[in-house]
């Protein structure tokens, strides 16, 4: 849904100017890192859990639990420690829109 939202925004502005930006806000940029493992837009094609159907609140809670080592993980504990509360809030907000 990141893609759909951005594609829609992009198409609208594209009429005005080809160079006009779609959404490249901080939250979008932060959330793009998730795709390398969790798949484009969080829709994982393989063995890594998909995150595209989780609500922002679920992602936020999971990341904070990983960061606090209260939720078992192989790698997410190590990754989540790289993000502040504010960043977790911003990037979680990119998922689960409109579901």
């Amino acid at each position: 849904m990141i893609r759909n939202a951005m594609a829609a925004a992009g198409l609208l502005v594209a009429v005005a100017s080809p160079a006009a930006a779609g959404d490249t806000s901080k939250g979008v940029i932060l959330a793009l890192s998730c795709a390398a493992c969790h798949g484009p837009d969080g829709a994982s094609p393989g063995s890594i859990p998909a995150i595209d159907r989780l609500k922002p609140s679920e992602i936020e809670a999971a990341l904070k639990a990983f960061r606090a080592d209260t939720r078992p993980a192989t790698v997410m504990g190590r990754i989540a420690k790289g993000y502040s509360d504010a960043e977790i809030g911003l990037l979680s907000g990119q998922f689960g829109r409109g579901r």
Partner: protein
Amino acid sequence: MAGSLSRRDLGRVGAAIAASAALGPVRANAARKVDVVVIGGGFGGATAARYLKQFAPGLSVVLVEQNRVFHTCPFSNLVLGGLRRLADIAYTYDRLSDRFGVEVVHQRAVALNAANRTVRLADGSDIGFEKAVLSPGVDMRWDALPGYDEAASEEMPHAWKAGPQTALLRRQLEAMADGETVVIAPPANPFRCPPGPYERASLIAHWLKQHRPKSKVLILDAKDGFSKQALFMQAWTRLYPGIVEHVPARDDGRIVNVSASERWVETAFGTRHSGGVINVIPPQWAGAIARDAGLANADGWCPVDPTTFASDLAPDIHVIGDAAIAGQMPKSGFSANSQGKVAAANIVRALAGEAPISGSFANTCYSLVAPDYGISVAKVYRSTPGGIIGIDGSGGLSPMDAGPEVRAHEAAFAEGWYASITGDMFG
């Protein structure tokens, strides 16, 4: 795999190109100008092209890639270990063009003119651009190790670019007699994929154990230590005792001289090692197109802005991936993918007159030691005015002494990562 061409097809395509070049004057192409040219359709470039179009579908984006089929270096060690075929790690660019509207031009870029903002292709045509993304990966340095030049790499493959070199090394392994040694000689830092040589040693050992039980792997290292060393060593003791031997530089592991015809490598203190198969991984530097355009420093790597990846030497050209000096980030496919997105976002913003935005970058490098034994190193990185740095407290290694379930879990995630990132790159 779609899009592979026979030799005869290639001949026809070549003839068609020659004919059209004869008909259409090259000067007609010279006037062509697009918003963004991406050079190199690998981990950095394919990602950047896709996300440029995803952020701003109205942009004209041309991807210049010399090969029609891209073989991923990630998972090429599985091909060497007999766990995948070369076709399993092959990708074409159809979906980047059909689904995302990237115009893919399969030619080699031969010159990049930063001042005029044009790139010259092998057929002599020029494409002008507002912004360029350069992700050519590495070239082997044929001047760095006496005796090891391009011709020698046909005898002693580096297989550090996936494709024909991977196939050659695999054929050599299959042809090797039981009891012969596989020599792997990794370079000093920095180089593409710091844990790669040790994953390779592991997966070759996995294959030897079943098919050449009297053979072993000898790693002659130009370094004293290496990425995920303790985890690799523990795994070798567990899975491949007596099969993998690592000789660090301080114990005379560094090779300084090579003879491809006599099939030996010689160390700094003059010890000659021969092997049934010799895999020399030579020192590397940024791909030629970046060095020739004057975008590299004296060591052959490209200094860039830590937020936007704009070249320090040509601000409209963004250099990403292995070719770039990205602070503390390792030269990995994951890093290149991460950088491709942040560079794409900043190019879109710059073209729209918006201020740069700093993201953060993630990297997780999985290594497979066996099909069901994975280990990883991870880190989150941030741009600072002084460069890209790892965020304190983030990242780190898989736990030592973990049991088989944890290792199996990470092996499954390595495959999941591969499926996800290739989907992210090629659509």
